[in-house]
């Protein structure tokens, strides 16, 4: 009885695994299949062809968009780590007037639905003349409430003695943050880094709003417009190739740092 239950359990979990993995497998296989096999491919293509990928490269500047996405996501991640730890440090370790107000503002920002600020933020971009520039993609995302809260929590767990000792040695506040706290906060840095990078890599609504020029588009934006605009010309293989390329960087990162991804995402979910 127990044995049979175990078998059912594994069958159930495996069926679930197939449901979650098969579409990705199909995407990869179909994007690599010769053109006449794409439509009815269910398991394995008879031979591997990069035809869909080479056609895709001729149709849209996907290499450029990849670099744009990489630049934007890296800049945002770097900014969020730096500013997040500065504000997190101030909130957890420094005494200053208005500290509670700042904390309240952060919580307020976190609960504020983005629908209300979407249009005004676009108008700010227009006023700053930032439409069609990297600034529009990067600057609004440099501060992130959740990251500040996470750094604040993490820094609270670091012994005050460490900071006091550094102060006696004559360290300034920035040295304390980046030379003393950072080496002791690797898990927090990884968590914030992963969530921020992933969120900016996958962001698509904001780029669609502020970027019109093709050479500045991020990868998800370019591929979205490729998929909905007529340029894919209902060529399934090419569409799937573009989707596969978009998924690849995150999937590769996920394969290596799977545990960190899951922990990071779960911890953000728990805090919201």
């Amino acid at each position, binding site marked *: 009885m127990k044995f049979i239950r175990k078998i059912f359990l594994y069958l159930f*979990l495996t069926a*679930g*695994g197939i449901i*979650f993995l098969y*579409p*990705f497998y*199909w*995407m990869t296989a179909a994007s690599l299949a010769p053109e006449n096999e794409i439509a009815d491919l269910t398991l394995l293509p008879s031979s591997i062809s990069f035809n869909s990928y080479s056609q895709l490269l001729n149709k849209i500047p996907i290499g450029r968009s990849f670099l744009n996405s990489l630049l934007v996501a890296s800049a945002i991640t770097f900014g969020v780590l730096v*500013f997040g730890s*500065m*504000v997190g*440090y*101030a909130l957890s370790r*420094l005494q*200053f007037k208005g500290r509670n107000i*700042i904390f309240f*503002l952060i919580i*307020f920002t976190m*609960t*504020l*639905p*983005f*629908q*209300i*600020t*979407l*249009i*005004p*933020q*676009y*108008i*700010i971009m*227009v006023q700053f003349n930032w439409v069609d520039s990297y600034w529009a993609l990067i600057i*609004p995302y*440099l*501060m992130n409430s959740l990251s*500040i809260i996470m750094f604040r929590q993490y820094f609270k767990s670091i012994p005050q003695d460490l900071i006091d000792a550094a102060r006696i040695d004559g360290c300034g*506040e920035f040295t304390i943050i980046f030379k003393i706290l950072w080496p002791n906060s690797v898990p927090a840095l990884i968590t914030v880094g992963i969530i921020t990078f992933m969120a900016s890599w*996958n962001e*698509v*609504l904001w780029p*669609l*709003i502020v970027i019109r020029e093709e050479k500045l588009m991020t990868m*998800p934006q370019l*591929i979205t417009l490729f*998929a*909905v605009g007529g340029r894919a010309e209902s060529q*399934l293989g090419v*569409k*799937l190739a*573009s*989707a596969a390329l978009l998924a690849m960087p995150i*999937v590769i990162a*996920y394969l290596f740092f*799977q545990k960190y*991804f*899951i922990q990071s*995402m*779960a911890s953000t*979910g728990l805090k919201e």
Partner: protein
Amino acid sequence: MVSPYIIHFIIFVAFPVTFSLVLIFHKWNIISPMEYIGFGNFIRLFNDEFFFKSVLNTLIFLFIHIPLQIIIALTIAEALNRKIKFKGFFRAAYFLPVVVSGVVVTMLWQQLYGYDSGLINRFLVNLGFSKVGWLVDPNVAMPSIAIMATWKNVGLYIILFLVGLQTVPPHYYEAAEIDGANYFQKFFKITLPSINPTIFMVVVLSTIGGFSLFIEPYIMTGGGPLNSTLSAVLYIYKQGFFYYHMGYAATLGFFFALLILSVVAIQRKFIEKEK
């Protein structure tokens, strides 16, 4: 130390919120000067069938997505929350769609949902069923998107439930077993009440997600067929960036934000009462 935060807050939070309160009383296409129209946008909104349609669509989405999400996530979490082999592999597999871009997931499911050549319909035909108009039938399109969104997000909720399940003190179950409780009694009397906070979180996160739905209908259906998948954000986007009705788009954003906050507040009340 906090001055960058204050500057950023003023430009990207305080000003937008204040400015949206100005915008909702104006008509503006960004190019010509703003025109004060009093409550014009409000009157328009309450007579706008597309606004109500998008609210209704979001509610349809939530009514399917939330229960499905909770049932599937909880079932899989229960199955995983015991000594089994390859636990890490299963967990990682279910989580994969969470990390992948919504654009990829939507493009994939668009093919799976295809009417004639989609894998799901071909599978159904092979089994002797008739084809389903996943994305072309106005009654089915939103539920289809809700199913896809569940597939995309459920991995995260499996993890959250797993964390929740591990917080249930084991001696509760031991005591129940001594009293002769069966599996379902234990599940409904001990497990469910103990993971109430997790359920609330899943409900809230899914609700916010439902009101933020954009790229899925944008790519799959453009809001159709017959506006059956017109979502809140897609409608703001259309008013703002197709027609350049900035005042009206801001009014929509304002009302959707109020709606989200009140729905979440009601859910909180409801779940707290359940305790």
